[in-house]
């Protein structure tokens, strides 16, 4: 059917630019993170006290920290650590949230209970959950992943529920019902494929949010423990040297901002492409 739809040729629009810039920044982020697994200019954990607090280009591309570690290498490995936690947390939130959302849309009885649980989960900011989990599990990747992921369950549940409810009201769902298909089969064959675009957009946007939150948790010492470099802890450690070595605070902050900006732009660009209402409007 798709091939029969003729679309008028159109010029390069703002949405395309947004998508392009977002995709390039995100590709850079993922590329640097993966590259750090096989190559970094220096070992990110290697301390060279004699070369501590050197400025950019004096020692390495971005200089060194208070222990003489190479800042560029730490940033590269930090990108991998940050992305790993963000992906795991968003994965947790997306899977559980989507399941809850489609279940709520399919069964009105389940709906009220689910929305109340979502309200309760949404009232616990990830940093507070992480503080509670920190008391239980201690700081580390599981604490960060669960705290961020659980907060995202209601986000995905609400988006999925709203989108799935619209699909359930369509005539072809009624036709599928009359053909004898059950709720689970209709959900798998008709509902999920039709709301996949909106879930993908949400995953991209929530990845940006997860990177920001992970940085915050690491800043408080609730993220990955040392010596694994994280952008948040690099910022926390830079606090003592704000006047002496401002580059220590600038580089990780700019890295976080660029990563989040890239994912947000990618999400916006994808939304313009995948959201049918916005596609029609443009």
């Amino acid at each position, binding site marked *: 059917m798709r091939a029969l739809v003729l679309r008028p040729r159109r010029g390069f629009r703002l949405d395309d630019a947004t998508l392009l810039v977002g995709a390039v920044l995100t590709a850079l982020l993922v590329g640097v993170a993966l590259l750090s697994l096989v190559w970094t200019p220096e070992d990110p954990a290697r301390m060279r006290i004699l070369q501590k607090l050197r400025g950019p280009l004096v020692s390495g591309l971005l200089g060194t920290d208070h222990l003489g570690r190479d800042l560029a290498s730490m940033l590269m490995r930090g990108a991998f650590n940050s992305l790993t936690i963000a992906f795991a947390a968003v994965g947790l939130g997306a899977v559980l949230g989507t399941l809850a959302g489609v279940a709520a849309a399919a069964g009105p009885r389940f709906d009220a209970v689910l929305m*109340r*649980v979502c*309200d*309760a*989960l*949404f*009232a*616990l*900011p*990830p*940093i*507070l959950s992480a*503080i*509670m*989990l*920190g*008391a*239980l599990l201690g700081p580390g990747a599981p604490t960060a992943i669960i705290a961020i992921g659980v907060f995202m369950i209601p986000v995905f549940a609400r988006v999925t529920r709203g989108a799935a409810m619209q699909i359930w009201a369509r005539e072809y769902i009624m036709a599928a019902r009359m053909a004898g298909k059950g709720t689970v089969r209709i959900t798998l064959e008709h509902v999920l494929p039709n709301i996949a675009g909106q879930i993908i957009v949400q995953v991209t946007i929530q990845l*940006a949010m997860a990177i*920001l*939150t992970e*940085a*915050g948790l690491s*800043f*408080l010492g609730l993220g990955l423990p040392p010596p694994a470099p994280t952008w948040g802890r690099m*910022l926390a450690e*830079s*606090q003592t040297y*704000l*006047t002496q070595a*401002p580059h220590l*605070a600038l580089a*990780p*902050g700019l890295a*976080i*901002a*660029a990563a*989040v*900006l890239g994912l*947000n*732009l990618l999400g916006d660009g994808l939304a313009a492409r995948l959201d049918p209402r916005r596609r029609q409007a443009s």
Partner: protein
Amino acid sequence: MLRHLARRAAGFAVTFLLISVLVFGMMEIVPGDPASAMLGTSATPETLAALRAQMGLDAPAVIRYLRWLGGLLSGDLGVSTTYGVPVGALILERLAVTLPLTGLAVLLAVGIALPLGVTAASRPGGVADGVATLYAQAGIAVPNFWIGLLLIMTVALGLGWLPAGGFPGWGDGPGPALRALLLPALALAIPQSAVLTRVTRASVVEVMNEDFVRTARAKGASVSRALWRHAVPNALVPVITMLGLQISFLIGGAVLVENVFTLPGMGRLAWQALAQRDLIVIQNVVMVFATVVIVVNLGVDLLYTVVDPRLRRRA
């Protein structure tokens, strides 16, 4: 209207109870309890058992939950194992920092976002619109604690205009306290204002295309009157919704910013309580924060009916 209020109040009560079960349940599975935290590792089992009995920790979990819930409603939150003072008093003392901090941040965020978003919407595609879009994208991407560090570096340490951290208290009048809160509030406000700018712009652009705005213009209303008198009041519902949703992020941000600026607020209290394993403080601070989130959301819900008469009639 009354039915709507009753429905919302019932929803609030259910959410509150669910959160309390969640928080209590989570703290219940944390290894150790307040008695062992108070006595340390050298305590004999007999002493530990005696203190547990004295603190009521030997009762079944359900009884302890109900006691805690009763305490929450009556203001008796137990005693901090670190500070040895009632947790309720400790929280009230810290709220005197966190509430003005978040309140000031909301004021600053709205103060930045509303004019910026409305100006951008008054001429979509214009210079102001470009500036607002750039500000919104950049503002959402920067972490508030990093903005805090940059403000300390430039405004506090570089120019020496405002303090880099600490809080003098409200004893010497509001002046010094507000000076200490201004930079942290700005750090919290910038990302919030970015989100609000985006929502304000989108909402005002949508309303400006409505028939009633066109009618107002046709009847001779100037662009600015049509904008501020007709479009903006009708575009406020999504802005208020976003403000309500942002409270969760604002509280999370407050924990971080209070630590950057060493402010003795609730967020710093929770963080320090984790370091000291003061479980009673963690449990109650988290509960108070979560209650603030749901109270604000309930308030936002009720505010809709004030802002939008159509919703009042429907309710």
